[in-house]
């Protein structure tokens, strides 16, 4: 925080924030609408032409990097502010006592806007259950929260347009809702670890969320940008760099042979490949774009992304502290089946 602002009243500081945001917004729009000119100018400076592989790769890099970073900064800020309205405590209160069905839909949707970190997956899980959120509804939330995340949606929107981002959003929610419903139907409460069952049978303190002012919400948004963009930008650069190389040099339809829509085993292979990977959306999507550009099927690639986010091995190891192996295995099997179906349906439809 800058020392000059410390002495000012909250109202003045909020005013300064809003003025800064308005200015930032104008600059953002101005920059975003000149991306093509910028990339053209850069290859012009290097004396390259887009007709050569090198020129095409460099253009790709200097077009996509500012575009993705701009989108990321803007959306992460907005989501950061929105998230202050959906603390885990608030979400839990909204879900508490909901019946299955509608509860699963609500839980999966709230998974998008509730701040979530896999390091607190277990406390969140138990916190939900202890407040009377059914097991299946809790799972809908836990599947949706990492999978349908804002970084993935921003990048899909930036690189493939709103249709693909919308499809990913819809399919991600569908997998989370249906998987939660199935797990709820299987009545697996006894496969929670004993210490969890003990906590659930007793009384647990229910911490309440804090009230924030608008100034604090904006500060949280800015902190969210610093945290997320600060963490993912090297991956964005690396991902786009790799994507640019593939874009310029790998022959057209190279990927079609083993990631194309006619290869029936490509979807399960993509899901299996996604499990041990634990990466953030930013690193993966530029590569994904380049793969699709060279003939990989969209359904296969989306299935791969969903598996990376929703079925990551490190997260399952964390959840193992609270769930017995049978429940973990059921969770993995149900979610994997859902993702496989999404992959096949996409490849078949598109």
């Amino acid at each position, binding site marked *: *925080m800058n020392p000059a602002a410390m002495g000012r009243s909250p109202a003045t500081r909020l005013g300064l924030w809003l003025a800064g945001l308005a200015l930032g917004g104008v600059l953002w729009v101005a920059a975003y609408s000149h991306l093509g000119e910028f990339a053209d100018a850069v290859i012009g400076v290097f004396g390259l032409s887009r007709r050569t592989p090198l020129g095409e790769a460099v253009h790709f890099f200097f077009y996509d990097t500012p575009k993705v970073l701009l989108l990321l900064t803007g959306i992460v800020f907005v989501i950061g502010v929105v998230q202050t309205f959906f*603390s*885990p*405590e608030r979400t*839990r209160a909204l879900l508490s006592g909901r019946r299955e069905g509608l509860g699963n839909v609500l839980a999966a949707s709230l998974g998008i806007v509730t*701040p979530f*970190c896999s*390091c*607190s997956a*277990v*406390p*969140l899980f*138990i*916190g*939900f259950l*202890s407040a009377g959120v059914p097991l299946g509804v809790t799972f809908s939330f836990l599947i949706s929260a990492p999978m349908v995340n804002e970084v993935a949606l921003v990048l899909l929107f930036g690189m493939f347009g709103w249709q693909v981002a919308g499809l990913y959003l819809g399919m991600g929610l569908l997998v989370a809702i249906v998987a939660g419903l199935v797990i709820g139907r299987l009545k697996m409460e006894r496969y929670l670890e004993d*210490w969890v069952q*003990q*906590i659930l049978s007793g009384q*647990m*303190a*229910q*911490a309440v969320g*804090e009230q924030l002012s608008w100034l604090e919400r904006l*500060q949280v948004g800015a*902190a969210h940008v610093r945290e997320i963009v600060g963490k993912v930008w090297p991956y964005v650069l690396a991902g786009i760099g790799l994507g640019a190389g593939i874009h310029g040099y790998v022959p057209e339809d190279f990927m079609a042979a083993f990631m194309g829509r006619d290869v029936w085993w490509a979807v399960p292979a993509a899901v299996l490949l996604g499990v041990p990977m634990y990466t953030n959306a930013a690193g993966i999507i530029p590569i994904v774009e380049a793969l699709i550009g060279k003939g990989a099927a969209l359904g296969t690639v989306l299935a791969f992304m969903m598996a990376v986010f929703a079925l990551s091995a490190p997260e399952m190891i964390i959840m193992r*502290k*609270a769930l017995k192996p049978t429940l973990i295995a059921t969770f993995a099997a149900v979610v994997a089946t859902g993702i496989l179906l999404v992959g096949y349906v996409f490849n078949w439809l598109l």
Partner: protein
Amino acid sequence: MHNIKVLGTGCANCRATVALIEAVAREKGVAITLEKVESLPEIMRHGVMSTPGVVIDGRVVHAGGVPARSKVEGWL
């Protein structure tokens, strides 16, 4: 003398929170006992759902993310 507990299962944010509270306490010359709670049943007993959480003298004052410095200064 305040008894402060930081609840969290060893993530980077939890370590940052411990370090921040130590630094602020040292700066202000406030005597505290700082304890890091990593056991999940213990964390759950406080009803905290997002880590790191901060408990001062048995009361949860913060949950989810590293607290702002000004907030920590307010507690001490």
